[in-house]
């Protein structure tokens, strides 16, 4: 199963871009410390990709991120931004070209939402109309109605809304590169899920090069095109696609960090739309039709109940999962309802096929990539 799972997802979001951020032999040793926080790190972030930096506390992931915009100056090594050596350029000018979002959000409490978003454009000397247009555009993008929100103060927003403004502020001057330091770390799990989904939606529209620090493996797997696993002392233990890291940890450290849940986590990388689904027969009277499961539908063609599922005497309770979901979602609903099969439905609620428990644990058949 592992082979079958990993092959399609590694081509799911192909990353072919040239390196947008490159660290070449970068080290950081803090004053009065003998061991470096980051040692001889080489890392390339391809254009348009989301690269997740992950690792245990003290592994230097935040230090690495902050060296990219030189909030922390590297002790040795070179930093390249879009091919240009920025190790020695003016740091303030450099940072205005790079979006920056932090966990504590850091919205200025004495400024309105609009003024917070407008900070960098103002420093860059944009004119008023252009700034206003940009603020409205960005608030729309992150799902905050400008008319409602632009004149509010940060204290009048919920934590999730504040973080959206934080993301909008990071995007304000349309930087090609965004650095995000655990931006969803301090947010409740439900809001965090939603923000992650919206973040992926936004990224599909804007296609920025993003470097993202997290300590949450699920977040790294969900958001990342690539994951860089850092070991204590700032050693790059593995740098690969999420499915590759889950399936083939490079060493014991990565294997231990990824932990026992790797097989389950991989399910969330596998989209149902990539599977060969089992055919279902639509029937009104419930006659068994060979080896295929039989489904009863209502007038609009939506499934209402199972008539018959091969291999089980009693038809299981009917559960459905959207075609856009992942195998993880399918397993989740099956376990929840104690059902041995799940109907996959499309956006219109029409059945597109079935997924059975037996098939899940035996062998999943993947469609040939249609390209």
């Amino acid at each position: 199963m592992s082979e079958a799972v990993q092959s399609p997802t590694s081509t799911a979001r192909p990353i072919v871009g040239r390196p947008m951020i490159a660290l070449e032999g970068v080290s950081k040793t803090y004053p009065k410390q003998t061991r470096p926080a980051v040692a001889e790190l080489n890392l390339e972030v391809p254009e348009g990709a989301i690269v997740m930096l992950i690792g245990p506390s003290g592994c230097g992931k935040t230090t690495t991120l902050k060296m990219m915009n030189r909030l922390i100056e590297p002790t040795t090594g070179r930093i390249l931004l879009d091919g240009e050596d920025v190790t020695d350029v003016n740091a303030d000018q450099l940072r205005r070209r790079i979006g920056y979002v932090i966990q504590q959000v850091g919205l200025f409490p004495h400024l309105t939402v609009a003024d917070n978003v407008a900070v960098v454009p103002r420093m860059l000397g944009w004119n008023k109309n252009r700034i206003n247009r940009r603020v409205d555009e960005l608030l729309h993008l992150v799902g905050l109605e400008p008319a409602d929100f632009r004149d509010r103060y940060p204290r009048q927003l919920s934590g999730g809304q504040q973080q959206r403004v934080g993301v909008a502020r990071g995007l304000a001057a349309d930087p090609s590169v965004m650095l995000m330091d655990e931006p969803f770390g301090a947010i409740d799990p439900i809001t965090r899920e939603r923000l992650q989904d919206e973040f992926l939606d936004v990224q599909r529209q804007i296609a920025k090069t993003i470097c993202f620090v997290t300590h949450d493996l699920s977040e790294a797997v969900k958001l990342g095109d690539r994951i860089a696993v850092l070991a204590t002392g700032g050693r790059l233990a593995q740098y690969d696609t999420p499915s590759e890291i889950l399936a083939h940890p490079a060493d014991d450290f990565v294997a231990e960090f990824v932990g026992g849940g790797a097989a389950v986590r991989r399910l969330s990388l596998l989209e149902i739309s990539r599977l060969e689904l089992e055919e279902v027969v639509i029937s009104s009277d419930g006659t068994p039709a060979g080896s295929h499961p039989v489904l009863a539908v209502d007038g609009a063609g939506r499934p209402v109940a199972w008539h018959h599922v091969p291999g089980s005497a009693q038809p299981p309770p009917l559960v459905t999962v959207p075609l856009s979901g992942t195998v993880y979602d399918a397993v989740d609903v099956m376990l929840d309802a104690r059902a041995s099969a799940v109907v996959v439905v499309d956006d219109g609620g029409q059945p597109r096929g079935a997924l059975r428990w037996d098939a899940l644990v035996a062998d999943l058949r993947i469609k040939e990539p249609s390209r």
Partner: protein
Amino acid sequence: MTAGVLAPTTPQVRSRSWIWRNRDLIATPVIVVVGLCLVLLYAATSRLDSVEQRALDPSYLWAKFLQHLWLTAASTVVVVLIALPLGIALSRPAARRIRTGTLAFGGFMQALPPYGVIILLAFLLRFGTTTAIIALVLASFLPVLTNTVIGLRQVDPALIEAARGMGMSARQTLLRVEIPLAVPVMVAGIRVALVLNVGTATLATFIGAGGLGEPISSMLKLARPQAAFVVSAIVAAVALLIDWLAGIAERLVSGRIA
């Protein structure tokens, strides 16, 4: 349409509710006016001899009042001009090593009794208004200095990191983020200095710098306690009113942020 939902942020509604929320501020002027009226009524109904009449003469008192205000205002302005920049400099990370020492020295100066300082300074320098102002500056320097340092140090480091991370220079971060957020604490320090100076300025008379202390001390020397009491009441009223005005300023600046 949405303006209805956002009513609290429209200026008119906010100003009306600001007055309502701060209705407790009315107490001080009411107490001051009532108390002062009672004292003046007492003075008007008492039989005053010619010495007392001269001390309580309105034009004489007015001149002393203006002197008193000048001593207070000038010393406070000098304190602000010196202590604010020094406090800002001390709050910078580079001044980490000398911060504690400087604040301790400020505490030492604060502990000196103003009565002694004002007279010693007069012998060291010369008698007169300038020396009185210097003594007042020494007496009220520390609250402004410490509040400036504390106000700037308590700004959330995440805000400073966000500012620097977006490309603000150290100077822009100070002017656009740190100082605006520290202003309420800084103003509270200036208020303390102002009130200290109003009180301490009554000692200026001992080195010939005038002020409302002059009629008080002369009436006490001439054994006219009623007249001394009336002038003391006026000094108290002035101190309360100045504190009240500074309190309003403090609420105005902190209301924008908190």
